């Protein structure tokens, strides 16, 4: 009885509602809610009975038999464990969206309930003609609801859906006739008994019907137009009920078709995924973007049907389809800004969760299914694996673009839409649930960083870096809201990262940290574009990491291609060699102390990844070390030059960060103990001084509201402490003794000389010299020179920002005078790594000895301080009195000065160098990436040109697809 109630209660509701709304709308809504809740309760009872919540085993099912007798005479509905989960989602979506239908078109309630009935019926149908009846109910209701909604293009969307449904009807009934004529049965199982000509006929007919109905490429056109044209409420209900039902029905039918070799599905799906997602890059309307995302999931279904079987297949399909449908539902329920509805809700989060879910970011539920699925593909079907990965990355790109375009609107209103809130909560709860279940896959027992010394260094690095960013988080300007929460999550994930014992754990923490940081950055003012770039590069490095991990069977131990992919992932994360675009876009717009965290702390995750690759793949030496060292050196030089020319404080620091990481890369590439000592030393040093600089910048921005050099200058009088700490950091990273930076450079150059890599050494040294240029500009442009009248009343930065800077400055001093404090930890840890060549530096007291020479930091420090003190005394007794002039105090020979900005002394500060360098061809990474984007856009335009908008073209697509299938199957079988 429970099973019948779960399936047929909405139908009774529909019948009652045909009559009630005319009499009393409130009663009809009440009846709907009561029946739906009862049905939901029945479904939940069934799900418990079937043990459906244990997602690892979805094989249970119960039969609901109808009519008289048994199949093939009568019709059974088979309520499967996976199906009942989908049914619960459908019930929930219907309940959540009913009030909006009741508000706009009360008489559409029977159709809403009817759509749920059709979806449930199709979900459980085991009979081919019975499926047809439910398919028709669904199509009719879709057309009807679309035509009755309140939006401009409804007729067109409805007529296209109607055209396609007409053709599907014809093809489907032909298949039914052929099946019955050949087997005398109408059950879905009978499909498997077909042979000969009718087998091919039925296969091509049904496959065309399925691909059209699930809207997989190339039969996507009508679905795109439909999603674009219909109202967001209808589209939301449709995607959570009907679309989900069709997908799961297709998943049930596909393995039963007598197609011979099911790998054909996978090829259709993989090719379709790439092509449709290319076209998706060009979509602009939100409905269309959701349409392309639907197409991606339909293609994934085809790939799954072609490459997996049994319980694994069911599990993957159910998790992927159910959760992606809920995500789309909540996106649609959030409203459609193009039709004057406003995105609303709890900031961007409400909007972001479904996007992240669709993009498969952990720990949201879709991730687990995608990970298992991709692992399976990687091990058995490499070509399909690459295609799927490419398609998924393209999908992530347009989803994030969609989000970044919309996220600013989201901040404005705070009224919430209960349905969307509920759906988002549902997803989060499910995410936690599934994560808990899949927790077994995670492994913290033995870290991928085998050396405990190095591991502890990284743990400490991440923890301290995160903690130092925290005090300043509440000094924020304007709408920079609550980014601290995401900073904390990101930092926590990073802190655990070194303990990860296998690939999936590493990937999970890596992605959580990256995307928590993405959300954090998105809280900045005007951070739209920067966030988009960050998200795209984060997903790029994420997918590369994923590919590398999966190709090396979930571990890091395989050299060759997986190691290469992992290395590239790390380079992207570090912003090396042209991938710095995200750093220079995200850091300047990130809120408060976020840039300090990103540059100082989060970028070290890439160092960790490189170390992990080196330790596991080759036992110590980084593969392609020499190439990496060259890349590092060139990046260091190029980024330093760009930093010197940058017009913005934080942008300059972003370039500088990329440049400094280039030195780390040079050290790691050396594969000698000396080189690695230098790399680790510099990594830690970079964390210290870069955080100090960015925290200083955060203080400046907090007080002045700007980070453009043209509006700064002369702040030394207003912010003396910030200046002092920045000065210490600058001296340190300019590698001038006695501060900490000198040691890193000294060790690195020693290593390079030892290895005989003199050209790299020369480039590196030159980059160090260029670093002087920008370090000078930084001090001069912000703190020295004339005070801008705008900043006349600026105060010192707040204490929560100053205290961490003070700590960091003291660390720089300590490290400068006593580098052996750090080296005593580093050197033993690195000596234990077998793969590294060369001799370790020897530490005797304050002396550090290498094969090249000795370095006594304490002595050097004292001497330098002595000289400095002498010079200072000399300056002091000379009695020199400088004259202070205002910014606008200058002669112009009777002409009007153009504007305060242009006569600012730091405007175009290094113009001579810019001129001197102008003979160099301007190969901007930006141009390369823009070119790549253009190429992708052109490809996308080429693909989407087939979706002409003429309904009959879509029918022709379906029929041509059918013909091609016939040719292909007859050739192949």
């Amino acid at each position, binding site marked *: 009885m429970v099973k019948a109630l779960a399936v047929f209660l909405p139908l009774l509701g529909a019948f009652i509602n045909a009559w009630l709304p005319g009499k009393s709308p409130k009663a009809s809504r009440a009846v709907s809610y009561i029946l739906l809740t009862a049905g939901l309760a029945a479904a939940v009872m069934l799900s418990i009975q079937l043990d459906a919540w244990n997602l690892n085993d979805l094989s249970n099912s119960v039969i609901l038999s109808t009519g008289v007798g048994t199949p093939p005479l009568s019709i059974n509905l088979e309520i499967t464990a996976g199906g009942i989960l989908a049914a619960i989602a459908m019930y929930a979506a219907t309940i959540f969206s009913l009030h909006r239908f009741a508000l706009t078109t009360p008489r559409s309630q029977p159709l809403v309930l009817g759509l749920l009935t059709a979806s449930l019926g199709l979900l459980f149908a085991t009979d081919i003609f019975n499926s047809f009846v439910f398919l028709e109910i669904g199509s009719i209701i879709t057309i009807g609801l679309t035509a009755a909604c309140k939006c401009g293009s409804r007729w067109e969307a409805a007529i296209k859906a109607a055209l396609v449904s007409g053709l599907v009807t014809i093809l489907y009934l032909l298949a039914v*006739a052929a099946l019955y004529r050949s087997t005398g049965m109408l059950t879905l199982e009978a499909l498997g008994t077909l042979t000969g000509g009718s087998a091919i006929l039925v296969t091509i007919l049904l496959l065309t019907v399925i691909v059209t109905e699930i809207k997989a490429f190339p039969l996507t056109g009508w679905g795109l137009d439909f999603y674009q044209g219909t109202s967001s409420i209808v589209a939301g209900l449709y995607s959570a009920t009907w679309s989900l039902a069709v997908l799961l029905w297709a998943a049930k039918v596909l393995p039963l078709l007598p197609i011979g070799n099911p790998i054909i599905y996978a090829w259709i799906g993989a090719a379709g995924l790439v092509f449709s997602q290319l076209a998706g890059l060009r979509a602009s309307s939100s409905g269309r973007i959701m349409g392309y995302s639907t197409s991606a999931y339909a293609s994934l279904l085809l790939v799954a049907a072609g490459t997996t079987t049994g319980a694994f297949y069911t599990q993957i399909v159910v998790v992927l389809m159910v959760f992606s449908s809920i995500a789309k539902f909540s996106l649609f329920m959030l409203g459609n800004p193009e039709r004057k509805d406003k995105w609303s809700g709890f900031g961007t989060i409400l909007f972001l969760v479904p996007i992240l879910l669709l993009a498969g970011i952990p720990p949201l539920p879709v991730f687990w299914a995608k990970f298992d699925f991709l692992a399976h593909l990687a091990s058995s079907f490499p070509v399909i694996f690459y295609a799927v990965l490419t398609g998924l990355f393209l999908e992530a790109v347009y989803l994030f673009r969609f989000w970044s375009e919309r996220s600013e609107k989201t901040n404005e209103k705070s009224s919430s839409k209960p349905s969307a809130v509920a759906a988002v909560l549902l997803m989060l709860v499910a995410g936690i649930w599934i994560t808990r279940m899949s927790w077994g896959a995670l492994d913290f027992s033995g870290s991928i960083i085998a050396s405990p010394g190095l591991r502890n260094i990284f743990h400490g690095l991440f923890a301290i870096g995160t903690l130092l960013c925290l005090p300043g988080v509440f000094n924020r300007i304007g709408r920079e809201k609550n980014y601290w929460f995401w900073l904390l999550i990101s930092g926590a994930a990073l802190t655990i990262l070194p303990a990860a014992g296998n690939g999936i754990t590493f990937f999970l923490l890596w992605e959580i940290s990256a995307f928590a940081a993405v959300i954090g950055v998105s809280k900045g003012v005007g951070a739209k574009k920067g966030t988009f770039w960050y998200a795209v590069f984060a997903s790029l490095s994420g997918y590369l990491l994923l590919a590398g991990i999966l190709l090396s069977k979930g571990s890091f131990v395989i050299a060759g291609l997986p190691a290469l992919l992992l290395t590239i992932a790390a380079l992207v994360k570090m912003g090396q060699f042209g991938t710095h675009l995200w750093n220079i876009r995200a850091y300047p717009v990130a809120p408060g102390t976020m840039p300090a965290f990103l540059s100082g702390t989060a970028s070290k995750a890439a160092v960790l990844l490189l170390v992990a690759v080196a330790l596991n793949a080759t036992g110590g030496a980084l593969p392609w070390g020499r190439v990496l060292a060259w890349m590092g050196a060139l990046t260091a030089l190029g980024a330093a030059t760009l930093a010197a020319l940058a017009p913005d404080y934080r942008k300059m620091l972003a370039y500088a960060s990329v440049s400094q990481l280039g030195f780390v890369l040079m050290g790691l590439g050396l594969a000698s103990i000396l080189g690695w000592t230098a790399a680790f030393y510099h990594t830690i040093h970079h964390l210290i001084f870069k955080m100090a600089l960015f925290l200083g910048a955060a203080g400046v921005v907090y007080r002045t509201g700007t980070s453009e050099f043209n509006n700064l200058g002369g702040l030394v009088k207003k912010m003396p402490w910030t200046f002092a700490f920045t000065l210490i950091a600058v001296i340190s990273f300019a590698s001038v003794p006695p501060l900490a930076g000198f040691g890193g450079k000294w060790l690195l150059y020693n290593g390079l000389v030892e290895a005989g890599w003199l050209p790299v050494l020369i480039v590196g040294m030159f980059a160090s010299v260029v670093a002087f240029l920008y370090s000078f500009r930084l001090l001069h442009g912000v703190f020295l020179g004339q005070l801008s009248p705008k900043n006349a009343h600026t105060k010192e930065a707040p204490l929560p920002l100053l205290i961490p800077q003070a700590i960091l400055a003291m660390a720089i001093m300590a490290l400068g005078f006593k580098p052996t404090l750090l080296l005593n930890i580093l050197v033993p840890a690195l000596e234990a790594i077998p793969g590294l060549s060369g001799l370790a530096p020897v530490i005797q007291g304050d002396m550090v000895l290498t094969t090249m020479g000795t370095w006594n930091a304490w002595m050097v420090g004292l001497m330098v301080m002595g000289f400095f003190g002498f010079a200072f005394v000399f300056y002091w007794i000379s009695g020199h009195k400088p004259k202070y002039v205002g910014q606008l105090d200058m002669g112009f020979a009777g002409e009007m000065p153009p504007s305060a900005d242009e006569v600012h002394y730091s405007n175009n500060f290094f113009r001579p160098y810019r001129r001197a360098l102008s003979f160099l061809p301007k190969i901007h990474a930006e141009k390369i990436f823009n070119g790549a984007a253009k190429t992708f856009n052109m490809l996308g335009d080429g693909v989407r*040109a087939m979706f002409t908008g003429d309904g009959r073209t879509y029918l022709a697509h379906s029929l041509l697809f059918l013909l091609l299938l016939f040719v292909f199957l007859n050739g192949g079988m």
Partner: protein
Amino acid sequence: MTAETMFYWSLAVTALGLVLIGIWGVLTKKNILRIALAFTLADTGVNLILVWSGFLPGRSAPIVDSSVTSMVDPLPQALVLTSIVIGVAVAALFVVVGVLAARKSGSADVRRMKELRW
């Protein structure tokens, strides 16, 4: 070839012909109402094919009676009953949507209903 066999196959050919004419019309006609007609035509053809799939030459209707010894298959007839009603329902809706879409775009030409594309 006996007359019964002739009838059997000519039924199939007629039905298939109707379907193909319908599909031809759907693909090439511009007027939305003609397309609706083409669909109805194809539907009729498909229904005939369904009937044909359970048809045995020389047998009578499936109503049990003392005088009847052999019958045709009742199942396809039941399916056709369902399919006809569904066809009616779809056609009714199609015509409504088609007429209103034509009113909106100012003409019954499907080529002018291309606001949504790419």
